[in-house]
């Protein structure tokens, strides 16, 4: 038996109450591991193409990974995979919290939910039984009230009124963490499923537990010694990016019209820490503790993350930090994704200004935003249309050129005309406008310590492939993306900061060899049989020890490639093609700054090379050769 796994995947059909163990072979576990990779493979196998995402035929899959709940630091992510009602594409929504740990303690690696309950229910999973319980008393409650009414000791996934009302960007909440994107909460609502709770005392088998514990201990030390994960994230949270993005023209301002705003400092991580921070919070087993707790209306609640600050701040010309804390709390209670929310608000404000629709919402005006948020969650008035997302709004009222989405998913808080490779990532991301599945190249272009020219398209396709592959692999192992900062060793950062020559060499090196780097990741795994330096890639050694397999750097890279390609294959089967790898005209045609002729995302210059490096045809479809190399069966 492979270490780390509980060895069982639970399948529940809410239409008829049927429960069974779904068989997952050792080969599938070895190839797709867990979390995002396993979730996508299962959905690809189980969901036929063309299914309405909000129909009982859609499937919701909750996955964990071998290292979940085993003591590895920052590695207890839970993933939810389904077909998105917002985009029609696949969505993998990843979050921290503790649900994954509790699901494994109940004895399961994953949960597959099918069908639709005839009335509101919640699902209770323990090591002794799986039961479908009446949720009559929970239906209508917000996410906090719902969790309060459920057993304290169990892990929980819940939806709020937005999920119940099938808002296309409703999220799922667990403690204060959120599986936010692309409407996973609406899928749960469409199944009349108010909550899933899990708990137990089971533990997975780990072949050499003592050695694994030592590795985890050393891994914690690596995170505790790194300047990003030991100083900046604990001090300022994800919000530490606000000021640097504003400085580098990557802060969406006024519905992505501009990339910087003079008022942004007021909603920064520094301002949050100075004025409202009560204390740090952490996901289960995390040594970083990037979460913020703030005080809102006399209650101590989760503080806003970077994305929320950007989208409900500069993007709607709001510099009132206290108000953002309140909007964030309200959105979490109702169960709304704050990225899509800020984007929808920005679109409506601009459309109203241009006379395309009638609204009292306006840039810089915040007193009516709480009402708008509530109207979206309960689908009242214009909220009924806003609940469908910006793509729908632009189709109904016009304004497609400034409807900031890709494949229907609203783009998050990085203005890509200040970092054009990041824009390519948004366009090609399988779940639509997403910074993480887009490869997060803005970190190499604007807000990271080692940066390449942000406005050139040279080398960017390869860098997008490289970053996507690494993030995908890390995610599939169940690790938080912040564990990836270990790849930037402190000594390297110090050298980069001290020596202009080193900084220049690194910058040019990434740029000129970017495409080659991306292509080199297509090498078969056996050509890279090495164990990577632990300080840079502790995830690889830890996963090998946890599972008792010969997991190498080559397999880590191949895992990232395989996981991304199976995502793509799902979308291709649903009819997605190159035409869908697109961005609105505002980002591709309008210059962000008139004095910078390259400050627009020149997709046409990058897409063909991106497909080529990926081993896809020019319609963006994985070729048979690529699938064979990655051992992906259709």
């Amino acid at each position, binding site marked *: 038996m492979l270490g780390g796994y509980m060895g069982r995947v639970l399948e529940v059909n809410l239409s008829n109450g049927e429960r069974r163990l779904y068989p997952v072979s050792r080969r599938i576990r070895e190839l797709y591991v867990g979390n995002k990779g396993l979730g996508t493979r299962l959905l690809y196998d189980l969901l036929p193409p063309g299914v309405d995402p909000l129909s009982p035929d859609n499937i919701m899959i909750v996955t964990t990974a071998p290292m979940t709940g085993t003591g590895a630091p920052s590695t207890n992510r839970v993933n939810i995979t389904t077909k998105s009602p917002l985009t029609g594409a696949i969505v993998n929504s990843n979050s921290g919290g503790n649900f994954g740990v509790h699901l494994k303690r109940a004895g399961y690696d994953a949960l597959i939910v099918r069908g639709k309950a005839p009335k509101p229910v919640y699902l209770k999973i323990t090591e002794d039984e799986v039961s479908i319980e009446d949720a009559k008393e929970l239906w209508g409650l917000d996410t906090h009230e719902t969790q309060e009414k459920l057993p304290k000791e169990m892990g929980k996934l819940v939806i709020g009124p937005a999920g119940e009302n099938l808002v296309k960007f409703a999220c799922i909440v667990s403690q204060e963490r959120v599986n936010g994107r692309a409407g996973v909460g609406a899928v749960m609502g469409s199944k009349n499923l108010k909550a899933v709770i899990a708990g137990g005392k089971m533990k997975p088998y780990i072949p050499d537990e003592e050695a694994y514990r030592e590795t985890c201990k050393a891994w914690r030390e690596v995170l505790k010694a790194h300047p990003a994960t030991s100083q900046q994230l604990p001090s300022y949270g994800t919000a*530490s990016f606000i000021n640097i993005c504003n400085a*580098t023209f990557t802060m969406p301002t006024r519905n992505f019209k501009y990339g910087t705003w003079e008022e942004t400092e007021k909603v920064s991580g520094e301002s949050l820490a100075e004025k409202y921070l009560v204390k740090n919070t952490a996901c289960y087993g995390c040594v970083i503790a990037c979460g913020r707790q703030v005080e809102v209306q006399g209650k101590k609640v989760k503080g806003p993350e970077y994305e929320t600050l950007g989208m409900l701040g500069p993007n709607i010309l709001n510099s009132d930090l206290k108000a953002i804390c309140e909007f964030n709390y309200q959105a979490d209670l109702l169960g709304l994704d704050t990225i899509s929310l800020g984007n929808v608000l920005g679109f409506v404000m601009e459309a109203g200004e241009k006379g395309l629709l009638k609204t009292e919402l306006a840039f810089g005006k915040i007193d009516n935003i709480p009402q708008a948020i509530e109207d979206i969650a309960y689908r009242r008035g214009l909220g009924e249309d806003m609940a469908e997302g910006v793509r729908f709004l632009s189709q109904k009222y016009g304004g497609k050129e400034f409807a900031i989405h890709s494949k229907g998913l609203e783009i998050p808080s990085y203005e890509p005309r200040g970092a054009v490779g990041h824009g390519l990532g948004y366009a090609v991301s399988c779940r639509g406008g997403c910074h993480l599945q887009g490869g997060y190249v803005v970190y190499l272009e604007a807000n*990271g310590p080692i940066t390449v020219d942000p406005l050139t398209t040279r080398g960017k396709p390869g860098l997008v492939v490289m970053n996507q592959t690494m993030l995908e692999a890390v995610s599939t192992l169940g690790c938080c993306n912040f564990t990836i900062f270990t790849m930037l060793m402190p000594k390297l950062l110090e050298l980069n900061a001290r020596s202009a020559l080193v900084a220049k060499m690194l*910058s040019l090196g990434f740029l000129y060899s970017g495409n080659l780097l991306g292509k080199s990741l297509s090498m078969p795994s056996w050509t890279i049989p090495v164990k990577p330096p632990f300080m840079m890639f502790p995830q690889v050694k830890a996963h090998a020890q946890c599972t008792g397999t010969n997991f190498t750097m080559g397999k880590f890279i191949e895992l990232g490639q395989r996981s991304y390609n199976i995502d793509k294959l799902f979308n291709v089967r649903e009819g997605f093609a190159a035409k869908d790898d697109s961005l609105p005209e505002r980002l591709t045609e309008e210059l962000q700054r008139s004095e910078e002729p390259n400050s627009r995302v020149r997709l046409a210059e990058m897409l063909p090379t991106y497909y080529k490096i990926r081993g896809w045809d020019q319609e963006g479809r994985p070729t048979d050769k690529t699938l064979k190399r990655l051992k992906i069966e259709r």
Partner: protein
Amino acid sequence: MRSPEEDTNDTFEAMVEVKLFATIRKVAGEKGFKTEASNVQEVLEEIYRKYGPEIRSEMAYCTILVNGRNIAHLRGKRTRLKEGDVISFFPPLAGG
């Protein structure tokens, strides 16, 4: 080759705005200051002089921007400054 904006007289000192962020700001105890300097190196020296040795460890990994552009894409610490330039100092950040 120098760009026109960099190609100024070596001895000319411009009044520039220095902005400090995150843990650098925390140690400095202020958001920034205005100073006269002809290049980035002189600004750095002013920071060390102003805030003492404690600031050095915070500056060890820092990213320096001049008007939003990373100095790695300009002339490093020899990047010349002109009147009104904004020089921003960030530690290695993570987020988002």
